[in-house]
């Protein structure tokens, strides 16, 4: 929270993207979250990803539910369409919006409370339907807005700021998504933009549901000793499994030198994702192996990060439901609303 507006002045040599825009043009209003909140870093990473992908802000729909995380769409892409929905119900609204207009880019921002407690059912079904949506789950393990009670992602043994220890099993959104057939599953950390930004770029370019679980320390209620979602703990137990890099369409491919086995996955729009297994033998295109590996790391108390699983080419919601190829807004009115006679004719078919 600040009293002054962020100065409009920017660095004169700030780089511009293909639309002649700087990252400053992708900002929203000034955050009112606690100073040092992981969510603000994720917001900054989202701004960078959209800027780097040259996506025009007005072609984006940003949606959220309720919670600290769900406030953040206000803080990026001020020119985008926005919908701040009911607690846990963002996936339904996103599904409806995507059904009506398939030509826009959809990003949903949620938190561990919004997604894993009240909205768990909604999340599961959006994954099943494979809605073309980048779903960012800002995961801090506590209910920040209500002063730091454990959320459904709190690890067994983690300590609250007041000293209570959690005994209930956590829900791991990445493993949940894998079991539900998600086609894009990633985990990252708000304090590592070098990893997070390319993951977000790949997620935005992926056709279908992309879950990006981001560990995002709650600086006020969950950044103390004994917490398993603090900045310090996450850095100490950080375990990068796969390094991802997106090469957008029409960009010459340069092979980056690095350790580990590299795989390339061609996305629906033609861009290429390079996945480099930091963990020897890990295959980010093998769902079962990925699941086993994540379980093993979770048991050891490690935070597995990276683009953990990617499968391109699965049918998305539009293909499965055989929807119109054009956005409804572009369908001529007579076709979209054929009138009383056509309705009567349809009704008669069911008699």
């Amino acid at each position: 929270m600040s009293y002054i507006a962020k100065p409009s002045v920017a660095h004169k040599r700030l780089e511009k993207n293909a639309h002649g825009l700087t990252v400053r043009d992708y900002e929203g209003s000034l955050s009112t979250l606690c100073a040092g909140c992981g969510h603000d870093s994720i917001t900054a990473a989202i701004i960078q990803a959209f800027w780097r992908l040259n996506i025009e802000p007005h072609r984006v729909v940003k949606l959220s539910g309720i919670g600290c995380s769900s406030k953040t769409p206000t803080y990026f892409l001020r020119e985008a369409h926005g919908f701040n929905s009911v607690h846990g119900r963002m996936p339904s609204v996103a599904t409806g919006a995507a059904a009506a207009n398939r030509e826009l880019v959809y990003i949903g921002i949620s938190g561990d409370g919004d997604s894993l407690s009240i909205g768990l059912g909604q999340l599961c079904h959006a994954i099943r339907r494979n809605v073309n949506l980048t779903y960012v789950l800002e995961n801090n393990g506590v209910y920040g807005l209500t002063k730091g009670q454990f959320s459904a992602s709190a690890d067994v043994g983690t300590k609250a700021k007041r000293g209570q220890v959690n005994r209930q099993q956590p829900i791991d959104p990445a493993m949940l998504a894998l079991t539900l057939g998600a086609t894009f599953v990633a985990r990252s950390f708000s304090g590592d933009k070098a990893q997070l930004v390319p993951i977000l770029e790949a997620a935005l370019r992926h056709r279908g549901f992309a879950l990006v679980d981001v560990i995002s320390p709650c600086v006020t209620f969950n950044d103390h000793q004994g917490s398993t979602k603090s900045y310090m703990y996450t850095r100490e137990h950080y375990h990068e499994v796969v390094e991802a890099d997106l090469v957008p369409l029409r960009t010459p491919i340069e092979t980056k030198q690095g350790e580990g086995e590299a795989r390339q996955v061609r996305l629906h729009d033609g861009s290429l994702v390079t996945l480099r297994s930091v963990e020897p033998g890990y295959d980010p295109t093998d769902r079962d192996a990925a699941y086993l590996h994540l379980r093993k790391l979770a048991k050891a108390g490690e935070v597995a990060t990276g683009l953990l699983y990617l499968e391109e080419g699965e049918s998305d919601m539009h293909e499965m439901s055989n929807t119109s190829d054009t956005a409804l807004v572009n369908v001529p009115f007579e076709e979209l609303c054929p009138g009383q006679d056509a309705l009567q004719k349809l009704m008669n078919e069911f008699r």
Partner: protein
Amino acid sequence: MQPTDTRDPDYYHRVVDCQWACPAHTNVPEYIRLIAQGKYTESYMLNRQSNVFPGILGRTCDRPCEPACRRGRVEEKPVAICRLKRVAADLKGEVDHLLPTAPEEKNGKRVALIGAGPASLTVANDLLPLGYDVTIFEALPKPGGLMRTNIPSFRLPAEVLDTEIDYVLRMGAKVHYDHRIESLKALLDEGGFDAVFVGTGAPKGKELDLPGRQEASANVHIGIEWLEAVHFGHVEKIGEKVLVIGVGNTAMDCCRSSIRLGGTSVKVMARKDRRYFKASPWELEDAEEEQVEIIENHSPAEFVLKDGKLVGMRFEIVEWHEDDKGRLRSKTVGDTVIDCDDVILAIGQDNAFPWVERDIGIEFDEWGLMKVDKTTFMTDRPGVFVGGDAAWGPENIIWAVAHGQQAAISIHKYCQGKSLTDRAPNALELTSSKMGLHEWSYANSYNPKPRSKMTHVDLAARLKEFSLEVELGFDPDQTALEVRRCLNCDIQTDFSSSKCIECDACIDICPTSCLTMTPVAEESKLRLALTVPATNLDQPLFVSDALPQTKRVMVKDEDVCVHCGLCAERCPTAAWDMAKMDLKIPHAK
């Protein structure tokens, strides 16, 4: 790259570009804040601590601070620092009780100052409060030196000059007017002074030795001599067609004076093109506003006479280009005669020391200047000091003040028998400006307004009355706006690496992309690895100690930081603080 030592007073001093660029290191941001608070008297006194003549300098300073001002890099134009200085001087209240005073009991040491210009007056200002017996010898009937005789009264009113000079002299300096020193040897041998300071300026205007010069001498004037004659009323008019040769600030004063003394067609003749003009841009603008024509690329060749009287001047028209070694070369492409009644030569000034004997232990260099130590301002003869234009040739008032302060320190040490080179360093005081949650003791929000424009007296009015001051000074609205343009560069972003949890909040919020966390590297690599590469090599990088969690370093490019304090507001652990810097600059004491 090694971690930055921010406790070295020079590091943060350099961040305050204006204060760093000012020869006298005036605390600009603080005096602007005082103006913003309506504390004009306090602002005036703070100014006076460093530059002794705020009212004079607020109208006439060459303003090395303004091209340095960070605002000029962030936007187009710097803060109107000089104009604000004048606001403080114009609106100040009673200052008599705040001025330095001389003690009743003297310290028994006698110091002679030769010339009553800004350098000598500064020495007097610093030495009189310490109990020195100060005697000033001035060749002219009034004090002020070139401040009085060379700056026309329509730019610097006599009252302002008299008042500020009096603040110094009233402490008990003995001034001998109309007393030109003809022999330094005699003064040293017979004066009985413990130390002598030479502040005689560069009083000799350069000559232009071209055909016809001697024959036309009745209508060819040396700029600074002519301005002096105008000041003392010896010259009251000039011909209608006037050519001013040269394009420095003296030329501007000559052409504008000519316009007021009967000149109807006044031309400033420049050998080079505008890029190479010596005059400050604002002085050129002011002259052009008064219908002075500035003609480029005309090299004087001959004074043209008819019946023994000056009627014009012949010029070669030249073109300039750089040769393969980057030196500027000219090529003559034509020839022209321009009619005129009078010519004023303003092509520079020389020092002249015919009155300094060559056998009294003072070494001279090949240009006829005394050899003066750059730190102590002492010549090879112990006890003889030099400052201002007399030391290394023409500069401007603020340099003379800075020289005077350093010379005063040396004279004081010399008279006490202390080492002159053992000088106190600058000292740094840092105080947090935090008042509460997101509240600071300075106005941290950024004001995007452009620089205020000075309003001038109506053109017709100023031509009627020679001494009518042209610049009206900022009005209250302009002042209120201009003070908020200052970026408060003295409120330093002070970083404690041990508190940092590397949450990125400061980096994400910084409006001008100054911050980066990155593995440490050597400076050249680090500069390129930043959020926006730091290509302005004049501006330093701050590099922190290794950060606790990842061992990276926090790097700040000082270049375009607007000191908005948002990094400190967004910092959850107060690793960033906005700390107000107070630089203690030693004066004679």
